[in-house]
């Protein structure tokens, strides 16, 4: 029996990473294989249907899989996550000279967001705005930058386009994950005083490795143990861990997805049973 994992091919490096991890896992006695998906929705559906045993899930894919599993009476477990998946924040950014000091200053503004299915650059920041009485169609115009739809925001292109639009004056504010703000500053897209952060979300969690109903408990336990045991001191693993953007795997936790669950409901993105509701979402 083989533990079969799904991962979304949002970038060619995904092949390098999982080929490398697969070699490590197999070398350590775990029969392991993976298949690649072109987007997260089919992966979440296949996980719950037992066609794959585990899925490297985006936070939004976790939310969808959890809802599908709930409706089907299937059991999921958030097995592990990266150290870098914990306590992220999204920020809402304005131009430095704009005079907007807080969210209330965005009444009537145009806000640039990432792809329709980006938790960090669209769903979560729009929820934050909504909680401050700012909603699309009433007192806010949303300009969406749909790059890599179906990848749940893994592709940074939408956020970068929103950031460019902000600098170009095409939008009054832009939404992005905290790491992208630092990235765009390092890249020189944002210069020292060209932008100002006016709001941050509460910390939330990002990806997790989810096991589904078909996962053999013994193999899943071994999978978890081997991932948690990956050492950054190991040069071969280190290059893979660097590519995947972590120093160490941490135990999975589900406490960091509440804000996204709410945002998904508010946006009517998925139904309580995991159905795709957003009619402008074509992964």
């Amino acid at each position, binding site marked *: 029996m083989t533990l079969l994992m799904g991962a979304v091919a949002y970038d060619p490096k995904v092949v390098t990473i999982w080929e490398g991890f697969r070699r490590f896992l197999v070398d350590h006695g775990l029969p392991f294989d993976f298949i690649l998906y072109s987007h997260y929705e089919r992966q979440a559906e296949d996980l719950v249907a037992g066609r794959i045993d585990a899925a490297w899930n985006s936070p939004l894919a976790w939310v969808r899989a959890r809802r599908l599993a709930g409706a089907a009476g299937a059991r999921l477990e958030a097995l592990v996550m990266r*150290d*870098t998946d*914990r*306590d*992220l*924040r999204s*920020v809402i950014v304005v131009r430095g000279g704009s005079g907007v000091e807080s969210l209330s200053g965005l009444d009537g503004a145009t806000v640039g967001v990432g792809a329709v299915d980006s938790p960090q650059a669209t769903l979560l920041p729009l929820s934050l705005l909504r909680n401050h009485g700012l909603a699309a169609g009433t007192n806010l115009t949303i300009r969406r930058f749909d790059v890599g739809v179906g990848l749940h925001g893994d592709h940074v292109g939408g956020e970068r386009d929103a950031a460019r639009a902000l600098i170009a004056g095409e939008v009054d504010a832009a939404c992005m994950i*905290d*790491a992208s*703000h*630092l990235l765009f*500053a*390092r890249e020189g897209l*944002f210069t*020292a005083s060209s932008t*100002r*952060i006016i709001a*941050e979300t509460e910390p939330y969690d990002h990806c997790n490795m989810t096991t589904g109903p078909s996962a053999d408990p013994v193999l899943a336990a071994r999978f978890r143990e081997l991932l948690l045991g990956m*050492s*950054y*001191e190991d*040069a*071969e693993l*280190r*290059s893979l861990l660097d590519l995947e*953007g972590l*120093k*160490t795997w941490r135990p999975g936790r589900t406490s960091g997805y509440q804000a996204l669950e709410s945002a998904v409901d508010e946006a009517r993105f998925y139904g309580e049973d995991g159905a795709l509701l957003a009619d402008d979402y074509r992964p």
Partner: protein
Amino acid sequence: MTIDLEDLGLDAGGYLIVQRALRDLPIGSRLAVHGRDPALRVHLAVWSREQGHGIDLSGPAPTVVKGSATTARWSRARRAGDPGPDGTLPHADVRWGLAMRGALVEEGGPPLHADLIDRGVVWAEAAQQLYQHGAARQWNPDTAVRWDAPFALPSEIEGAVVQVMTYLVENEYAAMQIPAGFIARMHPHYREVMQVLAIQVADEARHVEVFTRRAMLRSSEMGVSGAGGRASLQTLLDETDFSLAAFLLSVLGEGSFLDLLEFITRHAPDPVTREVAGLALRDERRHVAFGMAHLKYAADADRALLGRLRTAVERRHDALADTAGLNQDVFDSLVVLAAHAWTPESLRSGWNAVQALQKAMNEGRQRRLVQLGFPSDEAVELSALHTRNFM
């Protein structure tokens, strides 16, 4: 511990201050970071996460909690010897890749595709000195030779010079390609040897330049290239063992060329020919010196080496037994070059000069073989087996 970045952003280099402050703190230590950059809190949280540190945003100043990842990255790193001339190790690890000698080398990364990785196989104690000597004595082919010096030679004499130059150039090609091939196979841990070889390649490039230019100075038609001479050079190109190649090329071949170039310098019928041969001679002395220095070192490290050198000469002799060796045209041209004129008396003196040259080459080879540790009777025998092509 507390630091203050003032108004420096983390995105503009502020992380360097944080990194430096964390460097000597034990894992788990807390570093409060003050500063006036409005994005400091957000950026510090991102940076800490990316670096594997914890972050505590509950207090008035964001606080980094040192993680173990930076330490982990270097925990298995090793020093690749010492940087100085005495810092080489007997064996160079291909996993060091192109790391500088003495560098702290992180594990991982692609291994170097080098097979000359043992000191005993490549080293010479005089390598650094020979490199520095060579680097200091590079000359400019354009200005080191008085290319416009007036002279006029009878066409037969000029033709002989062109033939000799044609021969020299093909030998220089071999002398340029052989060390170049070894550079690519050598572990840079033995950088002094690579540097010597690189200077040698550059020297040969200049020899190619000046010999070609002399050949074309008065003539548009070059001399002939004999199959036997090229067969002889091909056996040098085919030698993949560094020490054997150094022996056949530098000690025996370039060693013989010292006498040849001295002969041309002494008997040159014109100033340009004299000068180009003299300049090449200076460089070749160094090439021979390196070959000798290396072989003395390698023979000390491996007592069986002399036997292998002997076999290499015999094998090459057998391989070339059915070839002509030196092109008759080259031999004749050396006679004519040294004769300076087309008279019986002059040709006799040219002939005698070439006889003396061959004797000098033979004695030179024997002398070097004895210096390497061969008994004198064996040196006589081996010198006689050397290629008739000189190189």
